Structure formats: structure tokens, C-alpha cells
């Protein structure tokens, strides 16, 4: 797909590459500085989750168009251990790694749409979208 570009997350510096990509795409689409910061932060969270919990995976940034609306979609895919209890990870303050536990619920608040699909053993698939207003 022409409107999609991906970054493989293998080491910590790939997180920087992923959010740089996201920032550039967000700029191209005409997002303001606040939304740019939201998008890059969301990418940073998702990429870090991949790096911390799944070891490796991929972040894709898509430009999407829907009936005159333009938007940016972050697709984070990994084939790591998956998430046992989705409701639990979407609660603020829940963390298995001693972190703040604000990552996933935070991403949901930073973006407009948030879809998570995960099965223990098969990995996690997250799609988060921000629409241009």
C-alpha cells in the first residue's frame, strides 16, 4: 500500500525511528503541534510495549481517508506472548513491569479510535487512529 510505511522494532533505537516516521507523516497530513505530540507519544508507548514485552514486532503508519476526512492510523503488530486479560491492561495503574501502567489506557485517550486484539500465545494487534479536524 502506498500510504503505509513500516518500521521494525528490534532494539530501543527503533522506537525513535518509529516515532520520527509518525511525526513526519503527521506533519505531512497537517496535524497541529499538539496532535503531533499526541501521535508521537502514542507511537512511543506502543513501540516500547513491543520492545519490552514481545521482543520484536512492527509499527506501521498509515494515511487513511474516509469520506473527506483524513487521518493517521498506527498499526502495532507483534507475535509475542499476548495479553491475558485485556480489561486489566486497559485499567490505569496496572503494570507487570513496574512501570506507571498508563501506557495502553493513555494511548486510548491520546487517540480518537483504539482497537486491540490479543490472544495469549499468538501476539497482539493494535490499531489506533487520529482524525484530522
Amino acid at each position, binding site marked *: 500500500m502506498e500510504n503505509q510505511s513500516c518500521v521494525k522494532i528490534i532494539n*530501543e*533505537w527503533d522506537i*525513535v525511528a518509529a*516515532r520520527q516516521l509518525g511525526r513526519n507523516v503527521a506533519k505531512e497530513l497537517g496535524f497541529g*503541534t*499538539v496532535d*503531533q*505530540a*499526541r501521535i*508521537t*507519544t502514542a507511537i*512511543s*508507548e506502543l513501540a*516500547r510495549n513491543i520492545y519490552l514485552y514481545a521482543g520484536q514486532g512492527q509499527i506501521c503508519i498509515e494515511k487513511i481517508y474516509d469520506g473527506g476526512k483524513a487521518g493517521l492510523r498506527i498499526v502495532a503488530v507483534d507475535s509475542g506472548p499476548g495479553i491475558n486479560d485485556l480489561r486489566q491492561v486497559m485499567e*490505569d495503574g496496572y503494570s507487570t513491569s513496574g*512501570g*506507571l501502567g*498508563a*501506557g495502553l*489506557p*493513555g494511548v486510548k*485517550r*491520546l487517540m480518537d479510535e483504539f482497537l486491540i486484539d490479543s490472544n495469549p500465545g499468538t501476539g497482539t494487534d493494535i490499531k489506533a487512529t487520529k482524525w484530522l479536524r
Partner: protein
Amino acid sequence: MNSTILNFIQNNKDSIFNHWLEATKENADERVTKVVSDQVFIGTSREFIDLIISNIKSSNEEFTSKLSDFSEKIVRLGWPLSFVTKGLQTFGKIVFEGMQEAGIVTQENQMKVIYEFDGWMTPMVNEVVNMYSATWERTVSLQKIALQELSAPLIPVFEGITVMPLVGTIDTERAKQIMENLLTGVVKHRSEVVLIDITGVPVVDTMVAHHIIQAADAVRLVGAKCMLVGIRPEIAQTIVNLGIDLNQFTTKNTLKKGVEAALELTSRKIVNVEGAE
């Protein structure tokens, strides 16, 4: 090295070179042609061909030192490695085709010549790749050291007040350094207030926030107060969206306001001197 191949290359040096230049120019991508002028391109190419030929004539040691000089030059010019390896391949192909045309390579000795040719080309390609990666590795390690040097300085600005400006991405390694520098510095400078300035941090996500909170907690344990300054408006919004609790921090939007607040905390203030000109 088979003397027939050697003789052929030496005798047809110029025509091989011209052939090679044409073929390479066609294949060269923009990255190569854009950064260098035609003159430099031809000059370097000639050097490249001379180098390949000198490999046949000169001793191994001499060649290695020449090759390292050359690869350094190429890296400086910014030519991609693929261009150089492809250049070697093209060179081999041109020589081989030329020999075929001249009737040196026949149906019978074809396999033998190919085998010998390969035995000569492969070590050379390996050498080039090795040189290249060694040069890159050195560059990367130097940059790593340079990056570490500008990592996390702690600057005493007033009696009891120190500032730690953070610039750039904070990863696990840097977070560790920040913590160490902060604690040793606070004790060394007998700081009462430490200002952490995050104006230069592009993204504040939960991990960065977590590290800063931990650092502030540790600073509190050694008896100083931590203040977070340089929070840009967009960062403030993302922090709120993420739901990060920074209530235990005093926060200011600029370093200037932070210094004023810190002076106040240590019962001092900046005053205008009356009568000063």
C-alpha cells in the same frame, strides 16, 4: 593468478576502464551522482580500477594498505557499499566478456578460467566489505562516545541550586546516567533544589515520566527538592492525556520561573539594584 588474464587486463586497461565507466554510470543511482561532480567521479573511478589492477601486481600488504586508504575516501564521499561491490562485479564481467571476444576464453578452458577468476575476485570483495564495515563501526562507536559525553550534565547555578538540562531522547542507558549524575551531583554540590529542564526532550511518554519520577523520589531521599521545568504546552497536554500524576512535583514552564521559585524556596530573591546605570 593466471598470466593470460593478467596480460589481458594490462593490455586493455583503457578500454576496460571506459567500458566500466559507462556501465557504472548507467547503474549508479542518484545518491552517487548527486553528491559528487563528474570529475571526482571519473577520478575516483580511475583510482578504483588502478587499485583493482594493482592487486594483481603488488604484494598483499601493499594492496591492503591501499585498499584501506581507498575505502576511507569512499566512505567520506558517501558512496554506498553496494555501489563499490557492484563496481567490482561489473569489472569482472567486462574483463571476462572482453576475453571471450578476444578468443582467450574458449569452450574447453571456460570452467577453469571462471574458477580462477572467482578465486581472484572473491577475496577482493571480502576485503572491501570488511574495510567498509570496520570504518562504519569506528564511526558508530565514536558517535556513541560523543553522545555519552553530552548526556546529562548537572550545573550548579546558585548556592544550593543546580540545574540538569535534558536534551534529546531518553533511553534506558541515559535514564540510568541521569539518575547517577543527579544523585552524586546533589550530594557534591550540597544542593537544596534541583531543576530538571525538559525543554529539549522531544517526547515525554510513560517511560520517560517514570524515570523522572523515580529520579525525583531519589533526590528527595538525599534531602533535596526536585522541580520540573521547561514543560511545553503540547507536552503538558499529552501528560494529562496519558494520565501521569506529577502532583508531587513543583512544575514551571520555563527555567527562568523555576530559578525564581527555587530562590524563593531558599529564601532569596532577585532584586533590581536602585541607582544602577
